[in-house]
């Protein structure tokens, strides 16, 4: 996961990194030995260590933290962790030190930092939490990592080895060689090998360039670029390696762009596909479609509120939940409004526009106009790192898959179920379908409910990507209509192809012309396309009489 790659800081890089690596290795090999055999109930020492933190200079604070890490007081891990989380503080009008055990809300339960004895509650007014900044945070993370018993596992060694790339110097080259010889994990060996090869290339060894061929690490590229700029034999060789790297990267970049495009497209498809049903199949111009998406997103939020601390479960429940709640809203809208506007599609536009205003304001009144925070479960955070140049962010990957699943289910529903058959029958010839015993009004209700439910699903997905607020739906309504019309009204495949292709086109254009112009070009492109094919990509064909 990429999150682990970058989270270690630059300060460590500047230092003699190999020592850290060796430390880590040592700690790992000695992990069976208890780290601190010595009890530290030495209160004055502990107090002195903490007092050193009470300074406004981040540099001094960092040194104090280092002193804690280097000391052998028992509480040091907990202190450093709390310092990292901003939960270590000093009494504002006194000299006790506290650990804040829970900093949500305005009254915090606190314990004494040295004795860990319960100290009641504190507030911002009484406890002055020690502040850290970015650099300090990185340093403390490093300290904690080296203190941690698990620091010697493969992942840590790998990240330490990766950090060595470009940092190998004459001073540490030998020890790196030694480490490489001792290392067992092939991944770590590769990284160490690359680090060494770079060093050798810098020393003028053309043979080592082979090791770097095809390496996608940006640091390799950055280091090779100046070497390749000369006109020696080495430079020519480096040039070819660099060219290989660049072309390989270019391919991965294209794959990345394609993924971006499909992911952007999947959002369009999700937002539009409910509309493809209500609008495409029933002919209802539902301006409140966006608000149904919003309802799906708010359902996710409410379920998460009901299940604190379990965002994954909540999200899983929100899928049926969002579908049902939005679907129920849809059924109610159909029964109370749309039913009475049968055959007057443009008036459904008017009524549903009114509804959308009401629903938006309802959300503002009930939940407040502010955005709501919907948490992502851990398994939707971060990215699936294929290699240095290609990574799929998990939430977007999940939305893409979700979109395809929703599409496939809808398609199957329309194709293979009784309801689907009835829907198609009613769409094609209402009177005939009724004559055949299809309860057309029930079918209408279910179809609209289905479209609304799918909009709700889109809301669930969007809650993982963007704001959950009263304006959520509004921002998708224009795009949704565009996708449905571009694809061809009444054609699910059209919606899929249209959404995906608009997404990809947009993402391809974006780096060239910027997001604003890309959007304008796409809009104008669709306008022109509709001139060529007035019925969209998948125009209904046949004898029109």
């Amino acid at each position: 996961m990429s999150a682990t790659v970058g989270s270690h800081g630059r300060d460590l890089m500047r230092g003699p990194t190999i020592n850290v690596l060796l430390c880590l290795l040592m700690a790992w090999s000695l992990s069976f030995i208890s780290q601190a055999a010595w009890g530290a109930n030495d209160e004055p020492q502990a107090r002195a260590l903490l007092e050193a933190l009470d300074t406004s200079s981040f540099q001094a604070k960092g040194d104090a933290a280092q002193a804690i890490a280097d000391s052998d007081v028992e509480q040091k891990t907990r202190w450093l962790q709390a310092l990292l989380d901003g939960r270590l503080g000093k009494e504002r009008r006194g000299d006790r030190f506290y650990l804040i055990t829970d900093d949500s809300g305005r009254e915090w339960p606190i314990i004494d930092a040295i004795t860990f004895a319960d100290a009641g509650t504190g507030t911002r007014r009484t406890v002055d939490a020690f502040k850290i900044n970015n650099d300090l945070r990185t340093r403390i993370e490093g300290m904690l990592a080296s203190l941690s018993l698990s620091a010697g596992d493969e992942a840590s060694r790998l990240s330490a080895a990766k950090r060595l790339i470009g940092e190998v110097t004459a001073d540490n080259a030998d020890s790196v060689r030694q480490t490489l010889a001792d290392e067992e994990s092939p991944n770590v060996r590769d990284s160490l090998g690359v680090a060494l090869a770079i060093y050798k290339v810098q020393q003028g060894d053309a043979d080592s360039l082979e090791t770097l061929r095809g390496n996608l690490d940006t640091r390799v590229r950055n280091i090779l670029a100046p070497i390749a700029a000369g006109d020696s034999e080495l430079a020519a060789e480096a040039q070819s390696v660099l060219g290989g790297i660049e072309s390989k990267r270019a391919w991965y970049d294209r794959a990345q762009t394609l993924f971006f495009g499909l992911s952007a497209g999947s959002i369009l498809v999700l937002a539009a596909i409910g509309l493809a049903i209500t609008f495409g199949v029933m002919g209802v111009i539902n301006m409140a479609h966006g608000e149904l998406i919003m309802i799906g997103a708010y359902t996710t939020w409410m379920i998460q509120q009901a299940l604190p601390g379990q965002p994954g479960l909540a999200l899983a429940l929100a899928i049926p939940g969002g579908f049902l709640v939005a679907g129920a809203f849809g059924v109610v809208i159909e029964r109370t409004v749309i039913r009475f506007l049968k055959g007057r599609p443009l008036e459904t536009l008017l009524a549903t526009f009114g509804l959308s205003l009401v629903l938006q304001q309802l959300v503002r009144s009930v939940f407040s106009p502010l955005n709501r925070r919907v948490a992502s479960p851990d398994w939707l955070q971060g990215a699936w790192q294929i290699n240095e140049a290609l990574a799929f962010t998990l939430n977007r990957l999940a939305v893409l898959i979700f979109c395809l699943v929703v599409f496939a289910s809808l398609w199957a529903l329309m194709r293979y179920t009784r309801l689907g058959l009835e829907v198609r029958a009613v769409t094609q010839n209402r009177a005939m379908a009724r004559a055949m015993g299809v309860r057309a009004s029930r079918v209408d209700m279910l179809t609209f409910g289905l479209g609304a439910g799918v909009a709700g699903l889109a809301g669930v997905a969007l809650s993982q990507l963007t704001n959950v607020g009263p304006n959520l739906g509004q921002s998708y309504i224009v795009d949704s209509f565009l996708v449905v019309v571009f694809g061809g009204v009444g054609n699910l495949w059209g919606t899929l192809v249209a959404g995906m292709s608009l997404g990809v086109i947009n993402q391809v254009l974006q780096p060239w012309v910027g997001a604003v112009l890309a959007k304008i070009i796409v809009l104008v492109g669709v306008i022109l396309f509709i001139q060529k094919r007035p019925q969209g990509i998948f125009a209904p064909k046949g004898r029109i009489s």
Partner: protein
Amino acid sequence: MTLTDNLGRGDRSRQAFLSRSTLLTSLVLIVGMLAVLILNALPDSNALHVSGATVALLGKYFTYMLLALAVDLIWGYLGILSLGHGAFFALGGYAMGLYLNAQTSPLHGWQSIMTYFPVAALAILLAPGLLALVFGWLAFRSRVTGVYFSIITQALTFALMLAFNRNEMGMGGSTGLTRFYELLGFSLSSEGMTVALFTASGMAVLLAFWLCRAITVSRLGRVSMATRDAEARVRFIGYRVDHVKLALFVVSAMIAGVAGALYVPQVGIINPSTFAPLFSIEVVVWVALGGRATLYGALLGALAVNYLKTVLTGAMPDAWLFILGGLFVVVTMLLPQGIAGLISKWRGRQEASA
């Protein structure tokens, strides 16, 4: 078509230019305008005095009514639902805005031609007109109809909104054009100017109403209604539907442009939010609420919705959207012909009982 043509035609008054509804609407407009002007001229102390701010507000309503008229001409009579008419309104507004800016600070590049009022006046008509011509020519030629047309008009205005938001357009980016001081050499902030703009807007509504009326009662108007109801059939009797549509679309866009041009000096700003699809949809809602294909219905709808908006946003800032949104729903369901439908029903009942 003369008045005598219609004698003895019973209820055919709706086809005559000088029908009852035309006369009544014109009368209400003229009398209303005169009343406002007279009441405004009363001394401040008088209980019936109408303040300059109210005159300005009514002037703004007039421009909205003009816009609604433009939409009704093509939606009501031709069946073309434009969800992007705000674009033409905004273009007219920007043309006027450039001219107003030129009054106080020199414009650069091509924009400097907007310094002259005749050029600006021409631009107010031509900018929306040309856009409508090109867009309409493309769309109608390839027979883009119904919702397809509606959606691409929406895309058009959305694209324009994004474009005008860009500073590179030289149109002031997202804040648009503002800081207007003078129009034709007169200060914009004077009460006299407020009254003049109000009068000009009122006259524009009246003239546009007559123009639309003349078009709709002509044979062209009947062709357009025929097109609305059975487009293919009109083609089979030999009319070039695309030309008919294009002509009315361009006229409608120009009316919208004039509306925008009158709107800008009264509001004091024009910015890309006028291009927002939501605004254009709202305009359609005014027309629907007032009653489609009646012209006076569009005027009524625009006035009613905007008056309500003014009152409610002040009187109940937290709940006005419920009322307005609810109203849209209720009116659609209970009054499919809008307010105009209610009026004609009421009149029908009166005549029946007479």
